């Protein structure tokens, strides 16, 4: 069990965002998390990665309790994420975005960095090499010197994923990786996700696009912060409660 969430609860003031949410992810799986807008998917991501502090419940990663840890400590455990609205280091180039994300591995000490020692230069060379590898995987290697803010939307999304991969994640959280992409970009992204999984990365993905759901071994559906269904993509698709959540309860005459 790589990730184990038990009874996770989050209130924003009096508003319930997530209520007693539980799930498990095994190593090497791709798990989909779906639900209507405002169901609490992104909040769950923010709770796992420490951006928000949980009101109740526990999150365990590889057997260790990680509830309440800060975002940079979560990243140190090799849990990486992308963002739905996709903030970037806009004034950095594409390559700098990725190489800045290699903050943790390999790590040079402050003194090594400051005095430009052999260790530091060796680390920098390997960071450059690996950054280019990742950029090739996400298809941005030809735009390495472009400023990130000048990229078209689809490429920015891919850059977000490249940045997450630079953390060398064991668990990768993708928040709507296909949002706003055109069909070509969607196919490319899906193949990149598949390649990533084959390298042994466990993936939790929030997405509306059904193409990605078909990659998943398991799909979890939430609504109003609570889990309403869990199962294979086919099972979930036929689940009555899920259809109700998405299409509304009452018949439209």
């Amino acid at each position: 069990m790589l990730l184990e969430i038990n009874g996770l609860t989050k209130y924003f003031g009096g508003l319930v965002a997530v209520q007693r949410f539980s799930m498990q992810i095994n190593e090497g799986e791709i798990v989909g998390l779906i639900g209507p807008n405002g169901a609490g998917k992104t909040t769950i991501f923010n709770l796992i990665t420490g951006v928000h502090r949980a009101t109740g419940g526990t999150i365990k990663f590889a057997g260790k309790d990680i509830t309440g840890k800060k975002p940079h400590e979560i990243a140190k455990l090799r849990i990486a994420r992308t963002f739905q609205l996709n903030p970037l280091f806009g004034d950095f180039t594409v390559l700098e975005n990725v190489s800045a994300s290699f903050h943790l591995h390999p790590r040079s000490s402050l003194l090594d960095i400051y005095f430009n020692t052999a260790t530091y230069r060796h680390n920098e060379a390997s960071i450059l090499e690996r950054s280019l590898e990742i950029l090739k995987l996400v298809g941005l290697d030809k735009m390495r010197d472009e400023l990130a803010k000048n990229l078209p939307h689809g490429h920015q999304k891919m850059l977000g994923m490249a940045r997450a991969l630079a953390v060398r994640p064991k668990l990768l959280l993708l928040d709507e990786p296909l949002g706003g992409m055109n069909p070509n970009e969607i196919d490319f992204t899906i193949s990149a996700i598949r390649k990533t999984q084959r390298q042994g990365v466990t993936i939790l993905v929030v997405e509306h696009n059904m193409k990605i759901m078909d990659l998943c071994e398991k799909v979890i559906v939430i609504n109003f912060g609570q889990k309403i269904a869990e199962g294979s993509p086919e099972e979930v698709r036929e689940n009555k409660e899920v259809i109700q959540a998405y299409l509304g309860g009452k018949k439209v005459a």
Partner: protein
Amino acid sequence: MTNNQLSPSTISQSKIGRRKWAKPAVYAGLVVIMALIPVFLSSPYILHILILTYIYMIAAVSLRTITISGQFPLAHAAFMGIGAYLAGMASKWLNWQPWFTIPMAAFVTAGIGVLVGYPFARLRALYYAMGSLFFGIGVIYIIYAGGVWTGCYAGLTAIPPLLPLVTSKVPYYYFFLGLALGSIIALYRFEFSRIGTNLKAIAQSHLVASSVGINEGWYRILAVGVGCFFVGLAGAGYAHYNQVLSPVSFNFMATLWLVMYVLIGGIGHFAGPIIGTFILIVIPEFFRDLKMYSPFISAAILGIVVYLIPEGLVGLSKMVRSRFTERRKDTWAVNAS
């Protein structure tokens, strides 16, 4: 043809093609010119102005170090005052040697900066600006309350000089030129190493930066500590050069002047505060009769710079260059078609 020709890879290739030694040669040339100034201009007055320029240059560049992490300190002159008063008092009342009080003051100022910055470093937006603003005002009142020890309103006088047996300004000139050069090189290394990259990453998006494992609070504190170290150094040097300290030199207005040096020089470039300090201290000396209007004039310059060259004076050369290249591109495109 035009679009493909201008793809990023071509641009970077042309950058590599440009002569690499051009920039260092220009900088080395500037340093040599500054080093030769006492040979040709021995007027103590000119040397005095330049010495002050070097001291404030250190302060302005160290202010930049903090701002690249996305924080906006409004007590930088007060920290300069802390460094200055620490060095001055230690030397006057404890008879410590300037060679010891200057580094001591820098380290203690850095420590105070970290202590003050700690509660604010975890908050974002304007909290650090607000907190440091009030701290800066507080420092001035502590100096006023210090009685004989700080010299109160009258100022701390008769501070032992850095070079007791020297009457000429020339040795001081070289000391402060060296101090400024050393500090600027040290801060340059800081900004253009991965430490500076991380600071800039935090400034652009703390959310993304922390998601890749950059410890936001720690790096902010580091920037504050390093910035305060160098401003303390500048202050301590000033104390032993000027030999008189007045609280007015370190109040909120003085901080605003430092901010002006950074803004007018250009906030987006390392050379910004260096050029800004030089221009705003040296040029007004040519118009001494207008000195009483200098806040107005500087405000006008700031307005013009922000409106016409948002990148600051450093951006001027880039603007001119890009206008040229653009024109070249246009004619090129016409020729190509």
